[in-house]
């Protein structure tokens, strides 16, 4: 086993200190060390988006970030999304995914919600094409994306109202 390294970071607004091996990805540490299993591993090489987190305001595949690269940085995972919106128990994006039945099995849902949050911060009123382009890094095998895209359109309307 390799020597472990101390990493200081902020996860969902809380300071976190963890130990990791140099080979470990941010995803592995977020899931296995910190117990935040809402971020999912669908592919492990940046092709499915199920592990997406927001790192210092930028959407990333956490499976492509090394854990020790998180030193000094700020991470938002699916578990922290609801807390970023103080007016309700759920973030409007989460609420709209529920209302539109935009999930079937739900494994890709955390990644889609995190990606959508990043999109709407960048572009509060995206067109359908802009949504489809942005979300092309998130694979869903159940829904055919129809209800997801509708949930995102509706989220944007609610949030910019």
């Amino acid at each position: 086993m390799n020597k472990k390294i101390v990493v200081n970071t902020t996860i969902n607004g809380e300071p976190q200190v963890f130990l990791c091996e140099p080979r470990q990805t941010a995803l592995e540490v977020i899931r296995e060390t910190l117990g935040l299993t809402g971020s999912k591993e669908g592919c492990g090489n940046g092709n499915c988006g199920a592990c997406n987190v927001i790192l210092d305001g930028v959407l990333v595949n956490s499976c492509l970030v090394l854990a020790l690269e998180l030193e000094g940085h700020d991470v938002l995972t699916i578990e922290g999304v609801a807390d970023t919106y103080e007016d309700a128990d759920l973030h409007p994006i989460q609420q709209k995914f529920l209302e539109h039945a935009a999930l079937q099995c739900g494994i890709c849902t955390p990644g889609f919600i995190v990606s959508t949050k990043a999109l709407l911060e960048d572009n509060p009123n995206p067109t359908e094409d802009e949504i489809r382009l942005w979300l092309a890094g998130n694979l869903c095998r159940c829904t055919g994306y129809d209800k997801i895209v509708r949930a995102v359109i509706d989220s944007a309307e609610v949030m910019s109202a």
Partner: protein
Amino acid sequence: MTASPQYRILGSRPPRPDGVDKVTGRAVYGNDTRLPAMLYGHILRSPHAHARIVSIDTSRAEALPGVYAVATGADLPQLADRVEDLRYTSNNVLADDKVLYDGHAVAGVAAVDLGTAEEAAGLIEVIYEVLPPVMDVHQAMADGAPILLSDLRTDELGEVLEGETNIASHFRHERGDLESGFAAADIVIEREFNTATVHQGYVEPHAATALWNADGRITIWCSTQGAFAARSQTSIILQQPVSKITVNPTEIGGGFGGKIPVYVEPVAAVLSKKAGHRPVKIAMSRADVIKATGPTSGSYIKVKMGATNDGTLTAAKVVLAYEAGGYPGSPVPSASGVVLAPYKLDNVQVDGYDVLVNKPKASPYRAPGGTNAAFASESVVDELASAIGMDPLEFRLQNAVAEGDRQANGIPFGRIGCIETLQTAIDHPHYATPLDGKFQGRGVAAGYWMNWGGKSSVSASVNADGSVSLLEGSTDIGGSRASIAMQLAETLDIPYEQVNAQVVSTDQVGYTDLTGGSRTTATTGMAAYNLGQNLRAEMTRRAAELMETEPETVTYENGVFSSNGSRLSFNEVAEQADASGAPIVGTGTAAPDQWGAAFGLHIVDLEVDPETGKIEILRYTALQNVGKAIHPSYVEGQMQGGVAQGIGWAINEEYVYGDDGKLLNASLLDYRMPTSLDLPMIETVLVEVPWPDHPYGVRGCGETPIVPPAGAVANALNDALGVRMNVLPMSPGKVLEQLWAQPA
């Protein structure tokens, strides 16, 4: 037609009970299980497509610090011939004396962490005698082909043939007289098709955690389509009684049939026992999933059909040869039930071949075998319609099956809804909207799936506040907690929110078949209806006691029990009964011997770039007889998801192998599933023709939608470019090859 019944809850769109957990990341899936002192497992896989295992030396792996156990096929019980299918599954989860595909599991390691387990797997020394692979049915069926299983014998129309073979079975369905049928035709078209191997593509890799405890009890937490199916397979593979095995189904991140077989469950259990009864979790990587699970069959299909000039089909002859992978069991039997299903035919012959090739053992994939079969038959039907100058939908309508017509296997259809769906398609505005581009085309295709009834159990208790705790054994793969709870709430005449639905372990509910065959909302819903009737009877009896009258005098309407002017609400009876007597509990089961099939018709508009061969889907409408749609959003979702998978199968997805049989595209970058950018909105039209033998008219709706897309896209491509494709996928290169082969 009689007026459809009025329901309070059925047909509405309430949020699913598990919804909040799934949008907040709290839901626990296969790889999210964490137990105290848990070890991490890793599987060593074959780098060869076909090889004999000469020796395996695990000593260096076992000596690595942090390694607790190593297991190979020698650690699994040898299964007798009588459980042949499970012997194959056993050899599939850990190879016996041969590896039969690139990625075949050879050994498992359990260690203190994943990195150590992976490192140890790399220290296992396996000596292989590499053998030549056979990679498609043409090679596998040829004389002198390398043989995968030396003890395999062909089941030829029910008789066992002598001699080594890769053909596991050949069956035939026939009715009528082919010769006179084709003689009566004015036009006969015969075409051959080849389709690639594809994967179900669920986003969650397989994962299981097992504890083989010191008292002999085995507990498994896994992502599976059927906890009881996982239990029975594990029981046979490990030769342990089901009474000693408990399966806790976690949330499941997609399955589409691919999470019916076990892969890592028995291996994790064996490792747990060898590791001193510590729990072991094995989670597959994506490459493992693509290389060693799924897929569904590549195939060779020949279709010959005849029609008269006035548009009547006279005869059809079909040959289906499907890849089984390394062990017998392709979906060619169900493909034979799909291939001509939408058409009334008196003269039919369908031959099916189940053929071994050096690819992963085929597992079910949504309407197993149906998509490639319908791609072939719907292409020929379209070509026939065009040849006699008929509209393709009118041609299909003229030949459409109705209740009582016989299928190829002789079994008559029940109330199928084929004609209603076709008529709805003809009247749909999509079909009348003009196309507006030179390289645009429109195609239609029909599809059918027979569905499955199976068996289900549910149980419930009525709490003192009137809420109902519902326990079910059906894995919820796409909102079925909601659709089952809705049927119970409807039956009990209480609000949907008052039912709390949970999926529980094999020890906590009666036997329930797996979530597959589009059976859950229908059959588990029927069990919920029966449970509701039982609870109503008991509540009525208790209401009568409270009102000091006889149960026969009590009526129940709108959530209120009434008798001779006395009234008690459901909640009041629950509360007072709790204070005065025994708890109110109930069970319901269902095992229907008839169930509703589903028929669909898809319309697609597309545009082809003649420079690159790339297809863009412009508009898509899926129409389907869905029986009664309990939760329409999830019915639409099933249809949209099936369409998306069908489009991927049609234009992108394929296993790409090198000449040595090694898989070249075991990643989600190179195994190209549709993204949001590849698809338009997918319009759905729910044609509600209730299934008469279900209390709420439910028929399965999940599988039919994947059947028509490949045929519809092929027919639209022909409309756009005038080229008939005879291969799947219709990827840009294949489209260009076909386009360039056209006479100028």
